């Protein structure tokens, strides 16, 4: 950030300049630093802030009062929000404590994210929808209990343009009809996993919401009838049909003649779709930008389809995962689809070095390439990719065993924009390879799972050079020890997600280094047999943002560690304590004290008694959403607590 010497000049900056600076800050941590500088900066923050993601609902009233210009509110991280809270917020929270205007914060709100807000019901939703006159976007995905009444409540937001209802399991055609009639301006709608939906609802939707640009009906049991209706949507650009088992080529024939604006279509995993269906789509839509047809082309790409694909000059994304593909096909694609940005060939049969070379020779704009499980490619292919696709951002070569440091060397030399690379299960990767790779300083996501040939030395290269890394997977990298983690913690301060499972060498000292990673939110460290309570304590104290902790089979961790966890890790949302030596007391503390805890896996706790588990469950039953328990406990726990959990909507998995 700004250096100390320039702080004098900073104060002379005008307000609008400060606002501009503020707007350039992308990361949330940077903004936090910004508003901590001085009052003036904080004022800029409050005036300019448009988006708010709330983690703790108890601060919501204050925050809403503080940020009057809020346009977007994300409540997905606090599932405890319910109708009562909403009512309270709308009737009590005004711009100032003495202001008569209540619920003012909702007036300017345009976007509302209520994903996983399982506590909310239709009455609260209706209050919100009515209180926010400008509401344009609502996300209620994964609210599994939502159904027609909730849909009816949402339909009172007449200005709605975007709506995500993924996995609202109770939603039926009736609810969809409510929305279709109420929110006729709808442009984007996602209905994934709304399993009750049928053709009738889709048909009505297509007749009422003619402005739809984005429609996702993935995983629904809709038939070709729905496609017939969808084909009448003149403005539709994006159509998601993933894993619709009842859709086949006949339905895609409707799409050929309809949807004149179609740009993106996803028919992945549609069992009934074959090459001829894709020919219909391609023939009807020359301007297609994205074609996602993974796992629906079991046989070889037909020549007819390739012939049609010659016309797709604007195609940017093609995914044909799981298909059988020949070298000539690669040539046709590369010769005609010059503007390809993303190619997905995951688990394709027949992908060879020569094929890849032909493919990438013309695709100089390629940014994303997925070659997962294309076992026969070697360094030659990687070199060709690196040489041709200088702007490559993401490369997935999981389980491509023949890649060695030579290939990584080419990548490190040419693909300097590389941000994500998946080298899981690539045995050829060694320390030298990581050294080459570390030249890609933009790297943010690195997956090295099962790369048993790398050691602390290799990791230290990454730690020194790849300062932007935020996700690192070291699953079963048995060569990794504490020294590697030290190097990592010195460089990769932005690390958010780390997997150390089965890295047996890691000890308490290593975890001490992990504790320096303040951004870390996701830590998986299964079966680290050397670590004890001391190490866990260091992590709990240091990683303030820790939200997801998996420490299954960390048997040596004693109660001191869990006490620390209960005391410090206030942001913990998910925890896996299975096979840990946690005692009754510590379990009760962890479960009772961690006020954001939503999911806990508590299988095979050898030091815990039934009473201890019962007490722990009682301590957290208000907020817990999902719990996994040892199956015999089903009959040992009191029926009362099970009923309470059930009544609160908690899902219990018996193992």
């Amino acid at each position, binding site marked *: 950030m700004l250096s100390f010497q320039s702080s004098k000049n900073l104060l002379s900056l005008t307000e609008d300049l400060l606002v501009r600076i503020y707007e350039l800050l992308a990361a949330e941590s940077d903004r936090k630093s910004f508003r901590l500088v001085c009052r003036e900066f904080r004022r800029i923050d409050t005036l300019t802030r448009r988006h708010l993601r709330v983690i703790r609902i108890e601060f919501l009233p204050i925050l809403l009062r503080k940020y009057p210009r809020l346009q977007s509110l994300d409540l997905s991280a606090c599932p405890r929000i319910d109708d009562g809270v909403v009512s309270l917020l709308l009737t009590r929270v005004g711009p100032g404590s003495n202001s008569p205007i209540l619920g003012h914060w909702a007036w300017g709100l345009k976007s509302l994210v209520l994903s996983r807000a399982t506590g909310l019901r239709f009455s609260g939703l209706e209050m919100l929808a009515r209180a926010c006159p400008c509401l344009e976007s609502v996300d209620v995905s994964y609210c599994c209990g939502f159904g027609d009444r909730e849909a009816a409540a949402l339909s009172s937001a007449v200005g709605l343009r975007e709506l995500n209802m993924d996995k609202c399991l109770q939603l039926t055609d009736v*609810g969809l009809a*409510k929305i279709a*009639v*109420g929110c006729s301006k709808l442009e984007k709608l996602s209905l994934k996993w709304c399993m009750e939906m049928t053709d009738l*609802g889709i048909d*009505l939707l297509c*007749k009422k919401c003619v402005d739809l640009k984005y429609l996702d009906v993935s995983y629904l049991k809709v038939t070709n009838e729905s496609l017939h209706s969808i084909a009448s949507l003149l403005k539709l650009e994006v159509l998601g049909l993933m894993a619709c088992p009842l859709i086949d080529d006949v339905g895609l024939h409707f799409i050929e003649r309809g949807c004149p604006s179609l740009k993106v279509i996803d028919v992945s995993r549609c069992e009934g779709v074959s090459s001829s269906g894709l020919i219909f789509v391609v023939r009807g839509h020359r301007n297609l930008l994205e074609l996602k047809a993974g796992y629906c082309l079991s046989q070889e790409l037909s020549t007819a389809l390739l012939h049609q694909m010659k016309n797709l000059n604007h195609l940017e994304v093609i995914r044909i995962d799981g298909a059988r593909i020949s070298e000539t096909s690669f040539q046709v694609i590369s010769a005609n689809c010059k503007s390809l940005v993303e190619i997905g060939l995951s688990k394709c049969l027949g992908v060879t070095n020569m094929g890849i070379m032909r493919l990438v020779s013309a695709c100089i704009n390629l940014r994303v390439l997925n070659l997962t499980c294309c076992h026969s490619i070697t360094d030659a292919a990687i070199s060709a990719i690196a040489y041709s696709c200088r702007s490559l951002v993401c490369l997935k070569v999981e389980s491509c065993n023949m890649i060695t440091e030579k290939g990584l060397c080419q990548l490190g030399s040419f693909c300097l924009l590389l941000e994500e690379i998946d080298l899981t299960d690539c045995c050829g990767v060694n320390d030298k390879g990581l050294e080459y790779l570390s030249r890609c300083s933009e790297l943010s996501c690195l997956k090295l799972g099962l790369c048993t040939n790398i050691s602390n030395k290799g990791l230290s290269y990454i730690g020194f050079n790849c300062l932007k890394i935020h996700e690192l997977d070291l699953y079963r990298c048995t060569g990794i020890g504490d020294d590697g983690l030290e190097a990592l913690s010195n460089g990769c301060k932005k690390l958010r997600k780390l997997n150390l499972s089965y890295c047996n060498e890691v000890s308490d000292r290593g975890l001490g280094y992990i504790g320096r990673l303040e951004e870390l939110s996701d830590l998986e460290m299964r079966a680290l047999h050397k670590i004890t309570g001391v190490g866990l304590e260091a992590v709990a104290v240091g990683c303030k943002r820790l939200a997801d902790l998996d420490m299954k089979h960390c048997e040596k961790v004693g109660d001191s560690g869990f006490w620390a966890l209960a005391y410090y890790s206030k942001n913990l949302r998910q925890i896996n304590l299975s096979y840990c030596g946690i005692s009754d007391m510590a379990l009760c503390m962890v479960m009772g004290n961690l006020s954001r805890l939503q999911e806990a896996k508590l299988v095979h706790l050898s030091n815990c008694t039934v009473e201890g588990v019962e007490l722990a469950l009682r301590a957290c039953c208000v907020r817990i959403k999902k719990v996994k328990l040892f199956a015999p406990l089903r009959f040992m726990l009191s029926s009362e607590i099970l009923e309470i959990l059930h009544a609160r909507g908690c899902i219990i998995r018996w193992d």
Partner: protein
Amino acid sequence: MDLKERVCGELQKEVPKGASFTNFNTQHQQKWEDPSSTSDYSTRIEPPFQAFNQTSQTQSLLLCNNQIKVPMQDGSVNDLLQASKIQDWDPSAMLNNLSFLGQKIHQLQDLVYLIIGRKGQVLGGPDELLVQQQQLVTADLTSIIVQLISTAGSLLPSVKQTLSAATTSLGQCGEFGGVVFPSSAQGLNDGVQPQNAGGSKVSEPPNSVDITSNNGNEQSNHIIEEHELKDEEDAEEGENLLPGTYEILQLEKEEILAPHTHFCTICGKGFKRDANLRMHMRGHGEEYKTPGALAKPTKESSSEPTIIKRYSCPYAGCKRNKDHKKFQPLKTILCVKNHYKRTHCDKSYICSRCNTKKFSVIADLKTHEKHCGKDKWLCSCGTTFSRKDKLFGHITLFQGHTPAIPSDEIKAAPAGTSDGATNKVGSVNFNLSSYVSSESEVQSSSMDIKGGIDDAVGYFSPLSFDTCNFGGFHEFPRPPFDDSESSFAFLLSRSCNYSQKSGEE
């Protein structure tokens, strides 16, 4: 009731059986010897007539609604007038016929007097002479009837060609199998056919006098009730047959309830349809495989005159029984079967889903099961649909309409306790004029007009929409005395006891 009337009554009752067999005389004789059936008949018939007279109130109610009826009746009269104009019938020939018939009837009357006299003297065992005389009487009566038909039939274009065939022989007359009401003049109102008035005077069953006297009234009822009828079984829309212009057949209870009506003469196997029997017959030899044997038997008789056949329910007191004052004939044998099972039989088919609704016709059960337990599809405008796609079609069509989400209370409501439901119906029935039930489909207005009880289905059938045969009627649990459709209940209901009526069905 003198003998002549009794003979007519007896004849009327028994002749339909003749449809199935040819030995007309012996059958008749058996019945003749059995006094119990006659007495039973009269007792069964008479109470309803008393009841009819008591229910003059309902009739006046009915008359209030005559606005619908009047134009239709006029139309029918006009039709008849036109028909009579078209035909060139000879009045003098008609007069000859009638006087001849009158003479014959007088002769017959004398004969019967004679028989009575002798019966009183020789009260011993069965006399050979008596049998012969009885046969004579029957034969004479039949010929009189046939001639009367031909006389009356000359007025109607449809029957005109049948005359020669009908008058030929007595044996053929027996095959007619049904009593034809001689009083064709009933339909032709005052002065149109004065000749026929004489005809009807000559030999008339006692109850047809009632019909003639109430002619206008009855016809209006007939029309109004047709409007109310929604039951497909009874639907006779557009049919406005005048009494006497059609032939009435009456099957016996056993015949109606028999699973099969067509039996193979060779192996005895039964079939529901004649076509199936014909198919079956092919297996019995080459002679059954000829096109003639396989053809529809009715087709060959189409060249012959066809008298419109209508059916009567054998259940005395039923409106579908030909002796009922407001008799409404049934169109086909299938109608008879369904009507009889629905109205006069136990409802033995119980819906396996709801376990409350019972049916006597299995097809009704199947129809019900298709919809049982399914939600009513309701639109925000209040319109209900039995099918979801219909609702969605409606919503597509009308701007701003949305499907209504049923609240849990409404869902639970139809499954009320039996007591509550019956009471509800009762209250509806008592407040005939104004009460409009909110959730049940009982239309109180429909029962104002409706006088009959034997058609409780039509009784409750709503006047609106596409609801199934039974309307909302079956929504109500059946009270315990449901199946006892005795004459007692019938009488009670006749005397304007509406609540009793509703309880009964």
